[in-house]
């Protein structure tokens, strides 16, 4: 009675939308079969192995729908029955950050990874690996607790007095709002950390406090330093960022800003915090 999949397919319908289709999308071979190479691992401490699946690429399919297809019939190209691939996912529209993984050697969200772009031809292969900077839970699922722990290190919050009705917050100009909004779009996906040569795997939570904090947390520190009330904790945030694993550990490779799916100006945040700690350190030295 009701079919929610439009016959024509959005964006490539007969009536329009054929214009701006990105690169490979237009060239993708319809009805092709692609190969999906997945790095699998049964759990912490277990050895990894590769499995290859042959999957029919439907119009508009992405890595998620491909993994869903594999789940309903988990058989490798060798004809061996295996288990569905385990992976983390949530919103499937690139706002929750859950489904981040390494695809063809680069970190990104798997939901926005369209098969038409990555494997446009018959038999093309696409490679899925878990992020390497976080401990693997199973298959493509990693434990990113450290990422959230690092937000606590910089007290990434506004210290409000409580939830009582105390009137509106501070007014701000549209320019201030736009600066903060851009920083506030960070969905803690961890792309910036995966691509960062200074951020390395650290399985021991006791070492998290002194290992490199990462671009996302530095940028969040800037976000809250920019807020009129959040500024109250500016000194504490900067002190945290001056210590081991703080902003000084940044090696300026600037991969973070290039892989950030939200185009957050992470390197500007790093420089802004660099400036803030410079001033803070000098002021503190003279103040005693």
């Amino acid at each position, binding site marked *: 009675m009701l079919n929610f999949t439009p016959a024509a397919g959005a964006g490539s319908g007969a009536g329009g939308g054929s214009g701006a289709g990105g690169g490979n999308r237009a060239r993708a071979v319809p009805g092709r079969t692609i190969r999906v190479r997945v790095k699998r691992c049964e759990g912490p401490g277990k050895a990894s192995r590769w499995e290859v699946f042959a999957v029919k690429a439907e119009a508009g399919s992405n890595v998620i729908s491909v993994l869903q297809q594999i789940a309903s019939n988990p058989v490798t190209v060798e004809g061996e029955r295996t288990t569905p691939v385990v992976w983390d996912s949530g919103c499937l529209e690139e706002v929750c950050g859950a489904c981040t993984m390494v695809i063809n*050697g*680069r970190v990104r969200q798997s939901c926005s990874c369209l098969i038409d772009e990555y494997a446009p031809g018959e038999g093309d292969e696409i490679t899925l690996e878990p992020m390497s900077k976080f401990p693997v839970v199973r298959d493509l699922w990693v434990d990113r607790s450290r990422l959230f722990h690092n937000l606590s290190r910089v007290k990434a919050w506004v210290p409000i007095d409580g939830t009582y009705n105390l009137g509106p917050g501070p007014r701000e100009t549209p320019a201030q709002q736009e600066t903060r909004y851009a920083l506030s779009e960070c969905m803690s996906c961890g792309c910036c950390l995966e*691509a960062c*040569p*200074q951020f*390395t795997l650290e399985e021991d939570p006791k070492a998290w406090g*002194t290992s*490199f904090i990462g671009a996302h947390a530095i940028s969040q520190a800037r976000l809250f330093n920019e807020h009129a009330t959040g500024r109250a904790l500016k000194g504490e945030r900067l002190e945290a960022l*001056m*210590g*081991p694993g*703080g902003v*000084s*550990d*940044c*090696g*300026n*490779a*600037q*991969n973070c*800003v*290039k*892989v950030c799916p939200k185009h957050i*100006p992470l*390197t*500007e945040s*790093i*420089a*802004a*915090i*660099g*400036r*803030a*700690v*410079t*001033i803070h*350190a000098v002021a503190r030295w003279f103040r005693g």
Partner: protein
Amino acid sequence: MSFMDRHYFLLRRLHSLTGIVPIGVFLIAHLVTNSSLLWGKAGLRGEGEKYSFGADGVTLGEGGVAYFQKEVTWINEQVPHLLLIEITLWAAIAFHAVLGVYYARTGRSNTDRYAYQDNRRYAWQRISGYVGILFIFYHVATLRWGWSWLVPGGAVWSHDAATSTLAMALRGSESGWTGAGLVVSAFYFAGVSLLVFHFANGLWTAAVTWGLTVSARAQRRWGGVCLGLGVGLMAMAWSALFAAVTIDPREARAVEASLEQGRVVSPGE
């Protein structure tokens, strides 16, 4: 808490600072002096012909040898507290090198997966640092401390015969190239090139670290400035090296001898 942790920020910033002052400043002065081997004639302000030699009166070292010698002599004989300056410099280099290696070991390069230009520079900053340390050590040990056993041909650099002894140390003998001399010259080429890169790129990253260039645009602009500086320094470094390896040590020695004796070298002597 270890000493490193307690003074984490200070050490990090001192590491950054020492790369610029005194090391970077010295590098500039050093390259300006050394490159005079090639452009020194201009520095003699018309007196060049007094120091020229060779049948046609034109050689690569024309004028440069003499000018360079005058500079070196001035530095060694006129600059006050030279030893103090040198010790300060060595200390700064040692500090920058030791911490640099320590810091570099905290990262793991990934240019294979993320082949961005900035990321490649990150990797090269570390490679150039490692090679630079070896190079500086070899350079200072052989030419300053006189560890001639490390020099093919066993030349001992002398500030009284700056060009000739340098050329000998680079070419491996007084009379011409030796295989070992080629290796040393190639090492010099790599060393000076990487150090110039290390300085120019370090100057760019320092501006981010200290928060001088915050916006992406400012970082790009400053990148242009650093690139310009790097190209200039690279030109000086290469010209100095080119001049030093192409000059005949014997001819250079003749110029130096004439300077010592305070007389003009005449063609064909």
